[in-house]
């Protein structure tokens, strides 16, 4: 028997589903490979639905909605128009042939158009052959591959942090004495000599605060919970937080998403010369960093910025282009090898200031998008879904990658999507207080393709 692709078509109930009906009533032939799923709007088709279709063995996924301007909900299809191309490039980056996912528009009267698209898509998928997306845990043996693009190792320069430490302590003391803030979130050195987050509530404790080349944590992660309004309680006092240039951008994203008000946060922005990794070299994100001075900043802890080294190499870019040049099968092999290490400990999610949903979609009991298992399919869906949710929001602090106990290059996914968002919408997360472009409607910035 010849190969018959299985195609899942998400059809918007107002236009495309009716369009398919029109094709049927008019007796226009459409391929029998298509299984139609009726959705209220193409904007409803979340990446989880698409991935779950692929995870369950679909060879192709077709999403059809109303033409732009004809949406029953005015702008639902704008969201589909923005999101699905991003999802497609993410899936392609991890090894899916991009032709297996298609978004198009069919109105209620366009029976012929529906049939044409259905035939085209079915033939395109047929020519690709059976899909190898779903991993059978009983059969597959994972080979872990590394990329050949070599990370440029930059020894960490000698820096003097004493002046900055003093300035942070002094300002923190001042803010606490004046009662301007209720808490200062900064860094301290543990007994073991590790630099870690600390919370200072009184002026006497401010001597704990330090600044050094190991201040890696993005402290803004703690802000939403600390500034949350609680029923029957006084609104929390403003909080001062020590931020590096990269971290400061996450404040802008959180402001755009209304997690707190600007006056609730006092940013102690530190002019940063880069942060060390555990081996004493410059962290990858810092090698690529372009900002020496924080973008969101109420007090600038300047110190000496002369040793700041702007943009020396583009490590992540090389890795991304290496994956780009690989075949889909090689890309899939690479990512599966990486995701195989994942233990689903959620350290990446918890360390991320942008991952602040009250209940994570991938963890809620009634989520049928993804199983609870710690298997390859589930882990891949989690990581891709998380990367997608961060598209246009990730500020590139790369804390997820640092927090990962298994050393998975999660940052590559975020970096890839940041590039896609930049190309499509000219948007850089956190530079201004603006939401991710993929949650807003089209305003002419979107380029087809």
């Amino acid at each position, binding site marked *: 028997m010849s190969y018959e692709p299985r195609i899942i078509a998400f059809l918007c109930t107002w236009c495309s589903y009716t369009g398919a009906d029109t094709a049927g009533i008019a007796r226009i032939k459409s391929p029998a490979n298509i299984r139609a799923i009726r959705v209220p709007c193409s904007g409803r088709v979340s990446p989880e639905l698409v991935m779950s279709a692929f995870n369950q063995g679909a060879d192709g996924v077709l999403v059809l909605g109303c033409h732009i301007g004809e949406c029953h909900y005015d702008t639902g299809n704008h969201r589909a128009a923005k999101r699905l191309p991003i999802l497609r490039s993410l899936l392609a980056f991890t090894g899916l042939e991009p032709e297996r996912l298609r978004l198009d528009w069919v109105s209620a009267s366009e029976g012929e158009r529906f049939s044409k698209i259905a035939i085209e898509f079915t033939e395109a998928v047929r020519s690709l052959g059976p899909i190898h997306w779903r991993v059978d845990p009983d059969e597959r043996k994972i080979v872990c591959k590394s990329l050949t693009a070599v990370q440029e190792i930059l020894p960490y320069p000698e820096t003097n942090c004493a002046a900055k430490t003093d300035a942070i302590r002094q300002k923190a003391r001042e803010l606490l004495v004046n009662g301007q803030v209720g808490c200062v979130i900064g860094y301290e050195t543990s007994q073991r000599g590790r630099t870690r*987050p600390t919370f200072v509530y009184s002026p006497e404790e401010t001597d704990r605060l330090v600044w050094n080349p190991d201040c890696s*944590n993005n402290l803004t*992660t703690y802000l939403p919970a600390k500034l949350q309004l609680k029923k029957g309680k006084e609104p929390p006092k403003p909080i001062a937080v020590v931020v590096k240039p990269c971290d400061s951008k996450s404040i802008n994203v959180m402001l755009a998403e209304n997690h707190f008000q600007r006056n609730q946060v006092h940013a102690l922005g530190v002019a940063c010369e880069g942060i060390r990794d555990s081996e004493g070299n410059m962290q990858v994100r810092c090698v690529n960093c372009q900002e020496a001075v924080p973008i969101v900043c109420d007090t600038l802890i300047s110190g000496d910025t002369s040793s700041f080294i702007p943009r020396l190499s583009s490590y992540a870019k090389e890795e991304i282009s290496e994956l780009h040049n690989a075949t889909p099968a090689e890309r899939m092999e690479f990512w599966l090898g990486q995701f195989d290490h994942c233990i689903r400990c959620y350290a990446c999610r918890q*360390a991320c200031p942008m991952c602040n949903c009250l209940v994570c979609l991938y963890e809620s009991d009634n989520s049928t998008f993804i199983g*609870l*298992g*710690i298997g390859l399919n589930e882990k891949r869906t989690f990581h891709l879904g998380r990367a997608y949710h961060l598209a246009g929001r990730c500020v590139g602090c790369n804390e997820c990658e640092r927090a990962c106990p298994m050393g998975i290059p999660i940052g590559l996914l975020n970096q890839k999507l940041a590039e896609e968002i930049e190309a499509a919408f000219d948007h850089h997360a956190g530079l201004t207080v603006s939401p991710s472009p993929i949650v807003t409607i089209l305003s002419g910035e979107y380029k087809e393709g």
Partner: protein
Amino acid sequence: MSKSIAEKKHWLISQTELESWLDGIANARTLIAPRQVSGIMRFCQVEKSDEIAWHGKTQKTKLASRPVMSIKEIFFPPTERMFKIKKNRQEIHLEETYPDWETIVFGVRPCDARGVKLLDALFLDTNPVDSFFARRRGNTTLIGLACKDLGPTCFCTSVGGTPNDSHDMDIMLYEKDGDYVVEAVTEKGRFLILSGEWKETDLGSRQFNDKEHFPVPEKGRWPEHFNDEYWSRISERCLSCRACAYVCPTCRCFSVRDEIIKPGEFERIRCWDSCAGENYRRVAGGHKPRAEKSERLRNRFFCKFYYYPEQYGLGTSSACTGCGRCIDVCPAGVDITEVLMDLEKSA
């Protein structure tokens, strides 16, 4: 496994002999050993002994010289299928899916072996016996490797362990001037030993470089710290991820769920879970008895040093083996040794 051990012997083998012995094992059975895979060291299946991440032969790992994950995952994997359900019209078939392959684990550190021993208290020594754990335990032989030094975050000697403890192994290896002294600990271990080919020797001295011990609060004293303000202070930086629990050799919580494999085929799986997660303790109606992260972090320490030892009769021993993995992986710098020292001080 008691009487014949009385006549146990020791052998001296070289690195080459050890490697060819392991090659032989890997040919016939499943050999699991520490292996360097894309930047991290992990217990993985190896087909040849040169795939093993030999200490000193490979470059320094990201963390200490022990694998990131403990050997817990060999006996209690992250996800385990408990049975398969096949539905065909009116008929429903249940299919048992017991693991039944023989596994040899090489390079087990005493802290990890002790961790598995501690898990026995729950899975094997308390009814009902966990048949999955029991099968894996029965089919697995542990070849231990004594540590000569304590790593930067290790503290086994403070919680009652020893870096050369052979109690929970089947075979124990001690490094000695570039060679290895092999000790047969159990009958199961003796079965693997090529006694005819190897040179017999004495056990000799089994020295290791200890480091300063710190006092651990006794089990009976933990309840008095339950309401301490300390927990909310120490937990502020905690991110509520589960890295500490998942790398821990003795954390053993799991969740059970039925999932679809494909139309008409389902499986019941159990997968790791951890008290650090916010929804871990959620009950019907949405109430969360441990809603605050301070309560959740406190639970982790209480479980290690009070609940588990109390519930499963570990005596004075705690459920912490001092491997220090949780210290290494914590992205926010929560340090179990610091917590223990602070509690000891506050008493």
